[in-house]
C-alpha cells in the first residue's frame, strides 16, 4: 500500500520524537519559512563555526512529513561542513523530485531515505522540503555575515 511507503516508521518516530526541536537562543542566522498552501511554519536557527555547521535548532507546526523532515535534516547536517551539507541537500532535493523512481543513497541521506515515498505525492513534496529550504536560506544568510 502506497500509504505505508509514505508513512515509514522512521518518519513517524521522528514526528513523535523530533530532534533538535526547540530554538536555542544564540545563532548566526534565523529564518522563518511557511508553506502557504497549508499553513505549516518552521523557524530555524543556525550557527556556523569555521565552515562547519555547529548547531541547528528549530520550532514549528506542521504535518508528520514536514516535522519529521526537518528533524531528519537537523540530525544529518549538524557537525557537517557546509560543503558536505550541500551535497546532502542536493541529494535530498533530487530524491524529492524523482516521482517515486529513486530510493535515495543511504550513505548520504541516512534516515532521509525514509522520505523516498513522499516523491510520489506531489502535494506533499513541499511539506518534506519546508525544513530543507529553511536550512538552505539560513546557511546562506549565516555564511554571508
Amino acid at each position, binding site marked *: *500500500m*502506497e*500509504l505505508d511507503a*509514505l*508513512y515509514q516508521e522512521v518518519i*513517524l518516530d521522528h514526528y513523535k520524537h523530533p530532534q533538535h526541536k526547540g530554538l536555542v537562543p544564540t545563532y548566526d542566522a534565523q529564518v522563518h519559512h511557511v508553506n502557504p*498552501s*497549508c*499553513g*505549516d*511554519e518552521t523557524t530555524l536557527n543556525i550557527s556556523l563555526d569555521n565552515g562547519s555547521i555547529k548547531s541547528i535548532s528549530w520550532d514549528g*507546526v*506542521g*504535518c*508528520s*512529513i*514536514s516535522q519529521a523532515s526537518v528533524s531528519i535534516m537537523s540530525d544529518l547536517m549538524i557537525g557537517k561542513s557546509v560543503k558536505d551539507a550541500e551535497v546532502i541537500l542536493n541529494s535530498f532535493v533530487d530524491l524529492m523530485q524523482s516521482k517515486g523512481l529513486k530510493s535515495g543513497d543511504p550513505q548520504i541521506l541516512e534516515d532521509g531515505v525514509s522520505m523516498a515515498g513522499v516523491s510520489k*505525492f506531489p502535494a*506533499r513534496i513541499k*511539506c518534506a522540503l519546508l525544513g530543507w529550504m529553511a536550512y538552505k536560506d539560513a546557511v546562506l544568510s549565516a555564511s554571508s555575515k
Partner: protein
Amino acid sequence: MSQLDVAAIRKDFPIFTRTIRDGKKLVYLDSGATSQKPQSVIDAEVDFYSRSNAAAHRGAHQLAEEATEAVEAAREIVANFLGGESDEIVFTKSATESLNLLAYSYTSLITAEDRIVVTEMEHHANLIPWQQLAQRTGATLSWFEVTPEGRLDLSNIDNVITENTKIVSITHQSNVLGTINPLDAIVARAHEVGAVVILDACQSVPHMPINVTELNIDYLAFSGHKAIGPTGVGVLWGRSELLEMLPPFLFGGSMIETVTMTDATWAPAPRKFEAGVPNMAQIVGLGAALNYLSKIGMNNIHLHEIELGSYLLAQLSAIEGLQVVGPVDMQNRGGTISFTFGDIHPHDLGQYLDAQGIAVRTGHHCAWPLTRKLGVAATTRASLYFYNDKDDVDALVSGIIGAKKYFGRE
C-alpha cells in the same frame, strides 16, 4: 433521508464512475473547493464548440448570431436564478475577479475618510482586494469579529459600520465554518449609513435559494465551478443603477462606445465590464448548470445538505478527540464542516482518507486570519453537496477512526 434520489443524480456525473487509488470508490467531500460536473454541463460546452463557436457580439454571420444568442440566453438564466435583471449580470472568470473588479472600480469613489467593512471569516478573495483598496485610497478597513462558536459578533454593529462606511463586503456562508451569516441587520445598518452591501455568495448560491431582491443587497459574486458549472466563469450581479455609475475595470474590445488614440467612452453595463471576447463556452455551460440545479430545486438541495450535515455532525460528535470548528448544530449553517482531530495533523488525516478514496480538504482553506483567530493551524474540511449521501458520510467517519489506528501505531 431527503427527497433527492441521490443514486439517480450521481449517474448524471461521469466522474463518479471512476475509482481512486487501487480501485476505491470516489467519496468526494471537497465540493467547497470545486464541485463535480453533470454530463449536461459538459455537453453544453461541447455543443457550443462543435456547432456555434464564433465571437459573440462581434459578427453579422450566423455562427456569431448563434454564439451571441447562447451567451445572452445564459445571462437570462443567471438573472432568473438570482432574481435580478439580465442587464445586471456581468460575466467574469471567477468570484475572485468579480470581487477584484468591485475593489478596483471603487478606487475613484473612496477617500481616506471612508471605511470598508469585512468580517474575520472572509476567504482571502473577499479580504485582500479590500486591504488593497484601503491601501490605495487611505481608507480604513475594519471588520466584524468571529465568536468562539464560529458566528459573527454583531453586538457592536453600530461601531463597526459607522457613518463613514461606504462598503460592507461579507461572505454569505463561511467556506470553513459552514456558518450562514444573518444579513438583515447588516443590510439595514449599511443602508442606513449609505454603504453598499456586497455578498460573497460563493458558498451559498450553489447550496440554497437566493434572491437578491429579497436580500436587498447591492452586489453579489459567485463562481460557476462551485455550482456544478465549468471552470473559468464567474458572475457579478449588481443593481443596475450602481453598475451604471461604476467605472469599468478591464479595458479592451466590446466594452467601448467610442475610442480615439487618447481617450475612450464606455458602453452601458453589463458590456462595460466585459472587455474582450467572452468566455463563451463557459458562460453557456454555466447556464446549463443553473438549469440543472433549478430542476433539482435549490430548496431540496438545501434541505438535503441540512439532513446530511446533521447526520455527519452527530457522527463526528461521537468520535473522541474530534473537535468541530464552527457551529455544532444545523441552525443557520450549511453542509461544510471543519474539524481537528487530536494530534493527527489535518494533512496526515487527509492523506490517510485519500488512500481510502475519500477527498477532503485540509489547511487554512484560504481563510488564514480565521483559522488563526480560532487558534488552529489548520483543519480538515468535509463539504457536502446534493450528490453526496449517507454512505459518503459513513465512509468518512470510518476513515477518521481508521486514521486514529493508523497513526497511533507504535
